[in-house]
């Protein structure tokens, strides 16, 4: 049986799925990236390998997405390397063909994707500001001495959410400290924080966008029920969180790999090869580009980052 592998590798977490020809998920895995995408992908491969019968299933397409898509795409010899916006849209549309709006809040960035008649018509990403992303929430959780996983549940117990300045991470943080010192209840502050994430998102990423239902909410922060509830209050309609919401990017890129006319022959043994990356600074012109070299078992397989042909290490 033919199957397709999709890997979504973000700043915080790494997601992988294997799908068959009728788009059923055969295997999936969700692990932390922990600042080492190559190691995370190796672990991911081992996790996925255990879930399937290798004698029966042949992976003929590999897709990668997420911020480390190029690196991991090179490593896995992927036939599709796609940006996360398209991957998320494709993945979500396969399960919710009517979706009009996708909210996505991840570890380091947040996005909004607008869809009409099954195609993406507009998108936005956070620009110079990381307020309200997963990284912000987990740092605030540790400041309050709470597990970030419990954030949502605690927020739901609040009857009177505290107002927290939402413009900017730095202001939100100092406002939060101030409210703590004033003696506000912890659950009210946490609920306020969830609200501030939402208003920040809608005023920043969602600024000027026409938000239409059905709305799907994805990314690590979507697991926080407090933020989901705050979204629903703000937009005035139901916000759907799929239990596989965290896998949408990986699913999307697996579907794209399936659609692609190029096929690869993928072996799980690739995870046992020795991959290395090295950053070198090219001194052939005054640009001093930083070039990333990727090698497999000590052999250079790809390099990028050069602005001009002087730094082209592959075609020499």
């Amino acid at each position, binding site marked *: 049986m033919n199957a397709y592998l999709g890997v979504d590798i973000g700043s915080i977490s790494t997601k992988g799925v294997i799908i068959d020809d009728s788009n059923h998920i055969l295997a999936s895995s969700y692990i932390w990236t922990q600042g080492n995408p190559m190691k995370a992908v190796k672990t991911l491969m081992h996790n996925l390998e255990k879930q399937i019968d290798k004698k029966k299933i042949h992976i003929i397409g590999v897709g990668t997405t997420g*911020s480390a898509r190029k690196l991991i795409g090179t490593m896995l010899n992927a036939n599709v390397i796609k*940006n996360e916006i398209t991957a998320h849209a494709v993945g979500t549309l396969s399960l919710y063909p009517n979706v009009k709006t996708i909210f996505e809040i991840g570890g380091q960035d947040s996005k909004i994707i607008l869809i009409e008649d099954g*195609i993406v018509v507009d998108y936005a*990403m956070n*620009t110079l500001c990381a307020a309200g992303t997963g990284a912000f929430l987990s740092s605030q959780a540790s400041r309050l001495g709470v597990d970030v996983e419990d954030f949502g549940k605690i927020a739901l117990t609040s009857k009177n959410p505290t107002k927290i300045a939402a413009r900017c991470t730095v202001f939100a943080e100092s406002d939060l400290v101030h409210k703590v010192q004033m003696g506000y209840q912890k659950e009210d502050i946490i609920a306020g924080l969830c609200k501030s994430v939402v208003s920040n998102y809608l005023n920043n990423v969602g600024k*000027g966008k026409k938000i239409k239902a059905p709305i799907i909410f994805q990314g690590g922060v979507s697991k926080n029920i407090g933020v989901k509830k705050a979204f629903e209050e703000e937009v005035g309609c139901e916000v759907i969180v799929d239990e596989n919401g965290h896998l949408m990017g990986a699913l999307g890129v697996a579907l794209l790999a399936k659609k692609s006319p190029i096929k690869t022959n993928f072996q799980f043994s690739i995870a046992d090869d020795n991959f290395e990356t090295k950053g070198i600074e090219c001194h052939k012109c*005054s*640009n*001093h580009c930083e070039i990333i070299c990727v090698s497999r078992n000590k052999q250079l397989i790809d390099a990028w980052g050069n602005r001009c042909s002087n730094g082209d290490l592959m075609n020499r």
Partner: protein
Amino acid sequence: MNKITIGIPKALLYYKYKDLWISFFENLGCEIIISPNTNKQILEDGIKFSMDESCLAMKIYMGHVYYLIDKCDYILVPRLKCIKKHEKLCTNFSALYDLIHNVFDKNLIHYNLDVDKKEDELYAFTTMGLSLGFSYRKIISAYKEAKEKEKLLNERRISKQKSLIASSNKIKILLAGHPYNLYDEYIGKQIERILEKSNIDIIYSDNYDQKYLETEVKQIAPHNYWTYNKEIIASIVHYQDVVDGIILVTSFPCGPDSLSNEMILRSVKIPITNLVMDEADANTGLLTRVESFIDILEERRKQK
């Protein structure tokens, strides 16, 4: 008399007036030295000599001026306050001369333009030429000749773009913004490279015939008084029916753009995205934005 060497920083208004400036000084028999394309060294020097709050294009300009120091007799740093009656330019353009003068204290050419005070382009070139010691007659003919050459080259660029629009069936993106953003190695060229790799035809907003500027600009912004932003807006109105999408390029944090971008984003009827470029070297975010924008345009084409 030894030939005078004029240094021109390849940044900011260079991209707007290069034909005029270069040909004027050539006609006068000056040597011209132009700083190279922005590179890492220039950017780093620029950041070193700039305030934190300056926009990326200004920081880059400082680096280019620094590069030219001690390589020429004079550096051309214009002071442009107003180039069209009752209209404004970004205050950076009127502050530039004094800023450079105070930071570097080198020989700059006196080039002042303020149409509201009746100091027009001819006046600016005359005073500039006289201060370099050329005769009035020579200056006037050098200016006239340069002006004609500028017009010719500009018309050639516009008609080249016109024929590209007419002949090609590829996806077309209008790259809209100030020329100093569009053509700078560290700003627009980064986007251009991604688009070229994706086999996209690029239409540039500055290749625009300003004949109908006033009527075209009114469709989006009836009360705009920023001259250079009006040109961008009018060009967007002009080209929006023949391109698939628009990428609006801004350097962080541009004042006039922050105003006119909002008007553009709210009025344009085709896919548009605004890319704000800062001095960060990592372009992963940029790549994601441009690629997904291209995906949107490709999907739209398929649907048609």
